[in-house]
């Protein structure tokens, strides 16, 4: 007799607790940039290091959410999302390089004794155009890749391998000096953004704030999608694509839409990451980075909106501790984590919490 009451009680409490916890975290995140503006002697002062670290993790959280839209909802495991992130980052990075070099060419180009800007970097001294590139570069690449992959009905592990190959190819391309992407070193030594000093506390606070806004916006988009019929079609596609086709839905359009949306979100996250971290180089496209993103999502719980955020937070929190304490063991630990999650936590931390809640 008691049990149904108890179950409904926890079910009712579930969303309330989530909303309360979410509100507290959001308030903290909004307070962080303000606290960073306090005088350094104040006990509440937040250091630039902490602000940058949290800002970086928030960018990763957006990537995790974007990856979860395609993996958790549509069942397309991408192992190449680092590429979209890096493309957004490079577009922003080039704008920052142009800001730093004034009327001249960026330093790495004069170093190669180039006299002209390559055509594809045309207009990048304009912030607006650079922002367009942040969206267009990952968006168009995802559109073209997705169009052909989905038309050829490439699925499952083949799809994952192709995305991995894509980011690897991107990395090799960007590594080369003659392609005009700054080679090995990438883009760094930024000075100003829109004329404001990039390391100034005010600029940092605004960039951090923008990241929080993007994260909340991504969450909202994800939530609206998950609530819509579109989201249910994605779930159906993940579980029984054939059935869906015989119901009269063309899966290609649905996949392409969510795939491009996801790539664009990653690009935007990359664009906010670069000015906060101060560097972008081809290692962001390395296959391990994209695999790591999949681990965040798997650990947090795919197919949920909060799970990936949690996963990105926990893994990156651990990573920043590990890389200080025992840097050489991080990758082993990451691998072990992935195995443990796959074996014992198929629904991630969120799945575990839900189960606890139901008991």
């Amino acid at each position: 007799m008691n049990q149904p009451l108890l179950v409904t009680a926890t079910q009712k409490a579930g969303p309330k607790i989530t909303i309360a916890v979410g509100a507290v975290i959001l308030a903290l995140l909004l307070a962080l940039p303000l606290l960073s503006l306090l005088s350094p002697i104040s006990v509440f002062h937040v250091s630039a290091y902490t602000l940058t670290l949290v800002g970086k993790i928030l960018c990763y959280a957006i990537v995790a959410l974007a990856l979860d839209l395609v993996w958790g909802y549509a069942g397309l495991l991408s192992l190449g999302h680092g590429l979209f992130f890096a493309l957004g980052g490079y577009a922003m990075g080039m704008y920052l390089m142009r800001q730093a070099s004034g009327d001249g060419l960026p330093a790495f180009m004069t170093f190669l004794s180039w006299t002209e800007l390559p055509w594809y970097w045309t207009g990048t001294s304009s912030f607006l155009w650079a922002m367009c590139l942040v969206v267009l570069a990952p968006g168009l690449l995802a559109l073209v890749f997705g169009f052909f992959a989905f038309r050829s009905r490439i699925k499952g592990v083949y799809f994952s391998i192709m995305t991995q190959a894509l980011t690897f190819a991107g990395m090799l391309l960007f590594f080369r000096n003659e392609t005009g992407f700054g080679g090995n070193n990438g883009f760094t030594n930024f000075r100003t953004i829109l004329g404001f000093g990039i390391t100034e506390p005010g600029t940092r606070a605004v960039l951090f704030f923008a990241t929080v806004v993007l994260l909340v916006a991504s969450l909202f988009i994800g939530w609206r999608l998950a609530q819509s019929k579109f989201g249910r079609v994605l779930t159906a596609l993940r579980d029984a694509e054939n059935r869906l086709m015989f119901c009269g839905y063309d899966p290609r359009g649905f996949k392409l839409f969510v795939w491009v949306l996801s790539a664009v979100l990653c690009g935007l996250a990359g664009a906010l990451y670069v000015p906060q971290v101060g560097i972008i180089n081809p290692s962001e496209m390395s296959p391990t980075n994209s695999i790591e993103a999949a681990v965040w999502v798997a650990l947090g719980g795919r197919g949920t909106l909060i799970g990936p955020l949690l996963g990105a937070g926990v893994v990156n929190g651990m990573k920043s501790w590990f890389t200080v304490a025992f840097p050489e063991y991080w990758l082993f630990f990451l691998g072990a984590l992935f195995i443990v999650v796959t074996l014992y936590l198929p629904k991630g931390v969120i799945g575990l919490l839900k189960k606890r809640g139901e008991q």
Partner: protein
Amino acid sequence: MRVTATAEFMLEPAFFPVEPNKDAGTSRDAISHGQRVGPGLDTRHGTILTLEDISVSFDGFRALNNLNLYIGVGELRCIIGPNGAGKTTLMDVITGKTRPSHGKAWFGETLDLTQMSEVQIAQAGIGRKFQKPTVFEALSVFENLELAQKTDKSVWASLRARLTGEQKDRITDVLETIRLTTSVNRPAGLLSHGQKQFLEIGMLLMQDPQLLLLDEPVAGMTDAETEFTAELFKSLAGKHSLMVVEHDMGFVGSIADHVTVLHQGSVLAEGSLEQVQENERVIEVYLGR
């Protein structure tokens, strides 16, 4: 205000009663009970599905071999045949999942099924229930029916879709028909085998196709459920055309007036169930099994 039958309304009834085809047994021996005036589908000659000389081979093995089959508008046709006869392959050909190596497949008089994709065929009005019941397991019973509903199925429409009152009523009706009203919010993956069968049938009803292909619909159902399904199919015939593949002869006997026996990829016999059961070649095939 009273609704009176207007001239236009009387000119376009949903249903034309037509005499059953007198030439049953000749080349186009489809029995037509009526002609449903479906939008865009031309069924002038009373035949909704025309398969001529269809062959399918898998690595040299002929799963279908010069098969000829005609289904009339509003007809309820049963297809029987031993395991491996090619019944499921036949449905794969009709729905575009498998391409025939040669042969003609027409839906109505004008739609060439061999040139259409699975999605186009489904949108043109052919619905299918799989042999292994296939529903969207992670979605609730209600959501399964919602997705199947006949409506604009483009990406854009799905992003903006809101269920109208009429659509909700339709779902409620179908839920009642398939007796899953009490499970409306359960994930479909938790349903029993028989319930999944019913849910898939319900999805077909929501889709409202002109031609329904049902691959072993009563497998795993209790006797009562089977009887109920027979009633349901009989009530659908006339308004829709049905092609039912079934091994359960009791069920076939209770619904079909016209049976096609498939063997090794070709039609072995056609006629009423009694007729085909007396056919010596059919007896041989079934006893020799």
